[in-house]
């Protein structure tokens, strides 16, 4: 950018030019003196011959167009000075915009992080997820390994299909064990993504020669930095996963964290060896869904064509194995962006819309203020126009002022947003899951902030400028005001105010809906009572336990826990509801003979519980009995089901003694029924769930995951040290995580609360903007007609008539805006549904609240102007006439 350099170097270039020309004149003098002319005469002659030095210099400067730059800088300086002289106005305008732009930057950053940021791999646009499913369940994308193999070997649309699964294990390096999450991945995982390691090497398909052939592990960059301080000598070292040694062969590139948008795995290990680490192997079963499949499209291939290819293969597969009956495939882009029905996506887009509306309201507010300021300067502007200043000149001045304010507002807003976003990045979203949202603004965010600033500056700067355009200088000088003829039926200001009130109503409605949603979500029956419960969670697999041995540890833990002072109840479950994890199994009717996924009734959340779990958790047993320690592998399988399970499978809730099956050899008799609860999230619809005896496992399959629940009258802070002591005493090798259940439930509501908070802030912002907007309009209207009021009072007008004549217009506009806003709210209710559960803008209560809130806004805004009208002294006003 040569011309930028020139602008900054222009002082130096200027000096060089004068020096050069001075030198020229001196040389001329020398020459004349050399010809015998006296020096003073020679000087005069040389000056004369050279011509007007300043003029020539100006001509030279013109060549570089410095005049334009200087002029612009001068204008900016002038505009800055004007703003400096009215600090209140400048600060208010900057702050208004900072809030509007800041809100947009925050929402856009989240949107950017979740929807727009591409995969950290070469050519991310070619990478697609290939989901397949037999009976589609919302939120289910996991598939079976056997199906994956068939697809991989027969498909023609992808350069390669790879798969990965999630594993949670105890990781030991040195002598400490920590709980960690990673991916088990097929050999071609990194090759399909076309990644290069940061150091060391990756594993490849050629490394896989049957079970145990690839005891390798690849670390994520983040984990490498956290755990090993980026030590390059980590390559070749041994890390133990669940006491199983693996050799570190490489580190993934910085920033790469797999395919899922929020999940940050610590490592990848070949799927071939994963079963030895986790102790269970799901790979042989065509109906065990646990892998995610993705691939890179061949050049020239579209997702649709690849999908058709996969579906054709799925039909073949269904013919070969009836477990694949009804198998279908869907190729989608990875992340939330690829999911057309993602509530996250819709919610974010809704939020973005509301944020833009806040900015629109702020801009329309500023436009009114700028219009008034332009009006105040009308005399000066009129004189300038009369002596030949062009419209463009004045317009440019107004625009520069508006842009200065908007850029300052944008800067402040972006800075504040930046601080906020950095804080948000460190939010723990889901318990012990390694979930991070990278919110740090990138170039795209800054560009958007800049664009928003400039556009809003142009918007509110140009609207009042229309006035200047239409002004007749002669009229303006005469009356000294650039007033557009009043009593027009609908002025621009009126329109702006109307829009502002409508937007405000909409945002206030949204924040009221959010507040109501939060209020209701706090009252949602959870199906358990988290208050007073402390949890100690671990995975016994990490200490090398599996099967029956784990149950013995469970019993010891329970026994010790019951002796902690203040403990009224203790129980064990493998997973805790609302923790963000858990298992689900397919439930089949009793008479099922062919256990094909297409024949299942539904998948049910499955918990393995110890006796006394319901009592400890505060879950009501509605019928039948609790499980007991006598329910073990020597006795028939029993299950406690929830109401939804009973109703969905049998159509009634008196189902004790009835039977169902999970697979051919896992048949269950229902021993009891408990109340419904929330298992995955607070706003999920009623879910079927079953609770099976810990000692029986799921048809004999034990879970190594353990959560010890302890109910105590003492606060968790006093229970935790004791709990930690007994946990370490019983099993020192297993890393226990201690937490109060209340905190966990709070975290489940974090996103909803954050959404509600943002909506609430936007509502308050909008209300503030509306108050200042209405106040400005009403005050203006009152002061403009004060003299007229004096005459009216003198002629005997009643106060009500006075009020009507001055405040009628703002009131009418308010009414129109309110109505418009409510109608908009009604039609945007679908958008809000993705942001807020348990409430919609269509409820009468919300409508009433919104109207009341807006009337309060209106009253607050008009009370001062109204008092001025009422306290008007006719005699004084007439004297001023």
């Amino acid at each position, binding site marked *: 950018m040569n011309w930028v350099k020139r602008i900054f170097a222009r002082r130096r270039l200027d000096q060089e*030019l004068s020096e050069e020309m001075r*030198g020229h004149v001196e040389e*001329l003098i020398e020459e004349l003196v050399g010809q015998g002319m006296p020096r003073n005469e020679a000087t005069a002659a040389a000056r004369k011959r*050279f*011509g007007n030095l300043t003029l020539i210099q100006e001509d030279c400067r*013109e060549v570089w167009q410095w005049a334009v730059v200087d002029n612009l800088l001068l204008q900016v300086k002038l505009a800055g000075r004007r703003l400096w002289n009215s600090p209140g106005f400048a600060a208010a305008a900057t702050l208004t915009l900072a809030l509007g732009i800041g809100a947009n930057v925050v929402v856009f950053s989240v949107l950017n992080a979740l929807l727009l940021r591409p995969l950290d791999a070469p050519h991310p646009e070619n990478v697609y997820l290939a989901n397949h499913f037999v009976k589609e369940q919302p939120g289910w994308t996991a598939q079976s390994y056997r199906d994956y193999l068939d697809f991989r070997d027969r498909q023609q649309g992808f350069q390669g299909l790879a798969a990965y699964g999630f594993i949670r294990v105890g990781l030991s390096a040195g002598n400490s064990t920590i709980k960690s999450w990673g991916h088990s991945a097929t050999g071609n995982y990194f090759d399909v993504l076309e990644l290069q390691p940061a150091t060391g090497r990756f594993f490849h398909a050629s490394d896989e020669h049957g079970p145990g052939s690839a005891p390798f592990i690849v670390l994520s960059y983040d984990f490498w930095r956290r755990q090993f301080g980026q030590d390059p000598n980590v390559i070749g070292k041994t890390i133990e996963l669940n006491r199983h040694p693996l050799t570190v062969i490489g580190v993934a590139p910085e920033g790469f964290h797999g395919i899922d948008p929020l999940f940050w795995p610590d490592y990848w290990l070949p799927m071939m060896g994963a079963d030895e680490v986790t102790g269970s192997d799901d790979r042989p079963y065509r109906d065990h869904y646990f892998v995610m499949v993705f691939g890179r499209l061949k050049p020239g291939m579209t997702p649709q064509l690849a999908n058709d290819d996969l579906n054709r293969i799925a039909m073949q597969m269904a013919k070969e194995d009836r477990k694949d009956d009804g198998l279908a495939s869907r190729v989608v882009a990875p992340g939330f962006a690829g999911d057309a029905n993602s509530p996250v996506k819709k919610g974010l887009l809704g939020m973005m819309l509301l944020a833009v509306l806040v900015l629109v309201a702020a801009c329309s507010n500023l436009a009114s203020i700028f219009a008034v300021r332009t009006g105040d300067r009308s005399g000066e502007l009129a004189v300038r126009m009369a002596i030949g200043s062009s419209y463009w000149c004045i317009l440019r001045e107004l625009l520069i002022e508006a842009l200065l304010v908007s850029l300052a507002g944008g800067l402040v807003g972006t800075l504040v947003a930046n601080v906020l976003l950095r804080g948000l990045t460190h939010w723990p979203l889901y318990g012990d899951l390694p979930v991070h949202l990278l919110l740090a603004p990138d170039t795209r965010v800054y560009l958007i902030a800049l664009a928003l600033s400039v556009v809003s500056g142009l918007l509110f700067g140009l609207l009042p400028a229309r006035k200047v355009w239409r002004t007749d200088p002669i009229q303006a000088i005469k009356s000294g005001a650039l007033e557009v003829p009043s009593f027009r039926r609908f002025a621009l200001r009126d329109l702006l105010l109307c829009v502002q009130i409508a937007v405000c109503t909409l945002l206030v409605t949204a924040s009221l809906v959010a507040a109501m949603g939060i209020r209701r979500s706090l009252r949602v029956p959870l199906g358990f009572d988290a208050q007073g419960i402390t949890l100690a969670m671990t995975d016994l697999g990490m200490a090398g336990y599996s099967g029956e041995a784990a149950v013995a540890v469970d019993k010891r833990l329970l026994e010790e826990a019951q002796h902690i002072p203040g403990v009224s109840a203790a129980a064990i479950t493998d997973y805790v509801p609302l923790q963000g994890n858990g298992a689900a199994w397919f439930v089949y009717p009793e008479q099922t003979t062919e256990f094909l996924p297409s024949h299942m009734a539904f998948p049910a959340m499955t918990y393995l519980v110890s006796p006394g779990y319901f009592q400890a958790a505060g879950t009501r047993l509605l019928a039948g009995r609790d499980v007991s320690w006598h329910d073990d592998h020597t006795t028939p399988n029993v299950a406690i089901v929830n109401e939804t399970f009973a109703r969905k499978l049998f159509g009634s809730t008196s189902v004790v003694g009835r039977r169902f099956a999970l697979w051919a050899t896992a048949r269950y008799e229902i021993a009891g029924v408990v109340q419904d609860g929330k298992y995955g999230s607070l706003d999920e619809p009623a879910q079927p769930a079953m609770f099976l005896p810990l000692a029986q496992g799921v048809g004999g399959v034990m879970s190594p995951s353990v959560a010890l629940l302890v109910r105590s009258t003492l606060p968790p802070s006093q229970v935790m040290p004791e709990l930690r002591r007994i946990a370490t005493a019983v099993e020192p090798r297993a890393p226990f995580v201690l937490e109060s259940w209340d905190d966990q439930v709070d975290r489940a509501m974090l996103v909803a609360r954050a959404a509600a908070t943002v909506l609430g802030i936007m509502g308050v912002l909008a209300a503030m903007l509306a108050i200042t907007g209405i106040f400005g309009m009403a005050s203006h209207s009152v002061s403009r007609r004060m003299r007229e009021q004096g005459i009216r009072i003198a002629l005997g007008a009643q106060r009500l008539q006075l009020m009507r004549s001055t405040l009628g217009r703002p009131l009418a506009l308010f009414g129109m805006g309110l109505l418009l806003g409510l109608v908009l709210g009604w039609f945007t209710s679908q958008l809000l549904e993705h942001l807020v559960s348990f409430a919609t803008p269509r409820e009468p209560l919300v409508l009433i609240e919104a109207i009341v809130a807006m009337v309060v806004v209106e009253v607050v805004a008009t009370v001062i102007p109204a008092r001025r009208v009422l306290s008007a002294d006719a005699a004084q006003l007439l004297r001023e006439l």
Partner: protein
Amino acid sequence: MVEGNGEAEQRDLFRGALEMMILQSLRRQPMHGYALVQEIQQRSEDLLRVEEGSLYPALQRMLKAGLVEAEWKLSATKRRVRTYRITRNGTKHLEREVSKFTRMLEGITRVLAPGES
């Protein structure tokens, strides 16, 4: 605003001619402003005298267009002067302009020649 005073510069020479002469002089050897005036005056055998008021803006224009480069040097008279040097771009521009100019001059000469018809 005062604008468009660039037109007033064409008192004795049109802009293209001055530029061509400057470039041609610089092609022979790099020199500073004063020397350029002298050079053109001598070459034209006192027929032409370049006005400083046209020379310096022209030099700035050519600097901006990248036809010439400037450098501070000591002159033969031990004076610190800004010496101009023609660039490769300038040479090309000069050749193009000269051939255009020659054709135009030829045309004008033919038109102005006493008619034989």
